[in-house]
């Protein structure tokens, strides 16, 4: 937690940047759907999709929601709960699908 007492006017990106990010988002979405339909990718479908959608997620958050340029504190305010949510998700998946258990009843 930093002590910023002065008001910073954050430099928001220009419309140009917004458009370019938009284009990348569209391409990534096309890729996602494409990967889904190409049988050759089926073995690596899940990791590829996860990477692609995480990239989209990050792009929107960083550029459209300005987290990249805005106060780091907002990143903290968003990032910690996000990490908690991801942690909870991973933990529950482990608990339910027994990867963590020898003979867990929860699954």
């Amino acid at each position: 937690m930093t002590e910023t007492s002065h008001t910073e006017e954050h430099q928001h990106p220009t419309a140009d940047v917004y458009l370019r990010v938009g284009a990348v988002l569209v391409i990534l979405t096309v890729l996602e759907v494409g990967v889904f339909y190409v049988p050759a990718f089926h073995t690596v479908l899940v990791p590829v999709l996860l990477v692609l959608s995480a990239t989209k997620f990050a792009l929107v958050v960083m550029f459209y929601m300005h987290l990249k340029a805005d106060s780091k504190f907002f990143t903290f305010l968003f990032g910690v709960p996000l990490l908690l949510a991801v942690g909870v998700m991973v933990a529950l998946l482990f608990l339910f699908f027994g990867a963590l258990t020898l003979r867990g009843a929860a699954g």
Partner: protein
Amino acid sequence: MTHASATQHHTSMGLDNRKMAFWAFIGSECLLFGSLISTYLVYKGRSVVGPYPNQILNIPFTSVSTFDLLMSSLMMVLALAAVQRGDMKWGKIWLFSTALLGLVFLGGQVIEFSEFVNKGLTISTNLFGCTFFVLTGTHGAHVTVGVLWLLTLWVRALQGKLGPANAMTVEITGLYWHFVDVVWIVIFTVVYLIQ
């Protein structure tokens, strides 16, 4: 939405009160959607009767919806940029098109839901129905609130009550809208593409 602190100029961290509250709210929403998505995932493949996801999810249709929502996010940032530079003509246009694309998305969801119901999948048919409808329905409810909010701003703009001085209000609306968009990015991948 509260203007309680609109006139608050000095803050200890140099950050706007409402914006900070809103980021905290978004953090909180992460856990809301995190719990919903976790539930969807842990119950995946546990339905004891059909229809099952691969029999019913319409990928081309939803891809279009996804595209639509992404574009609405783009409109939203353009609206913010316009309002910030005081260009209220384009501000109004972009605000309205954001709301419109949101409405299109909701329309798509209505079509999708009714098609599923026709094919025999309701909220009480099986676990897939329960988790799918509650997750996407919660998302849809967020979109609905967003559309109402955007239209409110648009009307204020038409009335001439929205200008660069309220850019923060538009920015916060945008934060909400983009967050709803990123949630959809996750849902689209996790629910639709990873079957």
